[in-house]
């Protein structure tokens, strides 16, 4: 016996489970006084080198841990462990992004109370990570000047989910004939008002400003050490 089809209303976010876990993570970070910051970019934009530099600059004043997402290797975690004592690799296999569940799993056994900052390096990908909230307080999108000025226009969604943009490899800008005003214009057109900083992990240019911006996002860090 068959009957007429019936429509059942659901009206639920597809990623509600991820959002729920991300909210729980955000609460946990807040309670422990940890500022979680994630970094997204295309592969090869210089996330790991940037984080190496950033952590070597910040680790004297702050207690920092890092989670690093990668499809297959543990190379990035090995590199980062030189400038940070607590590093864990999240190997995603075929999955092209990190999600809140992977973050929660990777944090197991760590006492968040002993941390000021948690840096999360996402898998190099400008598409998939944009859909997943990781419970981070701030998301940086990195754009290297060797990639071209129009990346923001090609990937508006990821730029739109980020809180600040970093233009990396500025030491190569002249050689790459990078049009900085055009890049800034393109970022502003997909994400009006977004903070944009220019950096070079190699020369250290602009890194002090990034450190200040990160420290300012963590009002609770003072006095923890």
């Amino acid at each position, binding site marked *: 016996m*068959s*009957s*007429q*089809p*019936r*429509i*059942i*209303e*659901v*009206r*639920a*976010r*597809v*990623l*509600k*489970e*991820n959002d729920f876990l991300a909210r729980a993570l955000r609460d946990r970070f807040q309670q422990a006084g940890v500022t979680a910051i994630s970094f997204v970019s295309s592969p090869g934009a210089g996330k790991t080198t940037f984080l190496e530099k950033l952590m070597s600059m910040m680790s004297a004043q702050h207690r920092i841990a890092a989670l690093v997402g990668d499809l297959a290797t543990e190379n990035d975690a090995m590199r980062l462990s030189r400038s940070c004592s607590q590093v864990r690799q999240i190997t995603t296999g075929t*999955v*092209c*992004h990190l*999600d809140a569940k992977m973050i929660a799993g990777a944090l197991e056994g760590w006492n968040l109370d002993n941390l000021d900052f948690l840096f999360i390096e996402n898998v190099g990908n400008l*598409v*998939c990570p*944009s*859909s*997943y909230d990781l419970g981070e307080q701030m998301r940086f999108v990195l754009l290297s000047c060797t990639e071209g000025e129009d990346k923001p*226009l090609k990937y*508006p*969604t*990821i730029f*739109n*989910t980020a809180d600040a943009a970093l233009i990396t490899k500025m030491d190569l800008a002249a050689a790459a004939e990078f049009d900085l005003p055009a890049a800034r214009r393109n970022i*502003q*057109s*997909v*994400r*009006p*008002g977004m903070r944009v900083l220019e950096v070079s992990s190699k020369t250290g240019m602009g890194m002090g400003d990034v450190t200040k911006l990160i420290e300012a996002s963590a009002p609770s860090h003072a006095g923890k050490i």
Partner: protein
Amino acid sequence: MHELSIALSMIEQIEQETAKRGGKVEAVYVRVGVLSGVDTQALRFAYDLACEGSGLAGSRLEIEDIPLLVYCPQCSSTHEPRPQNIACPRCITPEQEILHGRELEVRAFEIVQ
């Protein structure tokens, strides 16, 4: 290609709903915003794959594309920009509030008992 993960999440949600009610799922209605990070063509492809072997095998996926709708507090008006240029076309003020375009939701499903 995270659309496969997205499709699997959708199917899981619907299966939870149908477990309570029973019935065969004929169609799933979803809303996908232009800034949701999901490619609708890839989602269609992934959906058929993800449905195989599940209770939703053979069901239709009906996608409603949600364009951007942005509110400009300076002009107290809304506009429908392209994602590549979301500044207010009138006053170019940066503080724009995105009202629609980030949706990624299962709106409803259709079952026969």
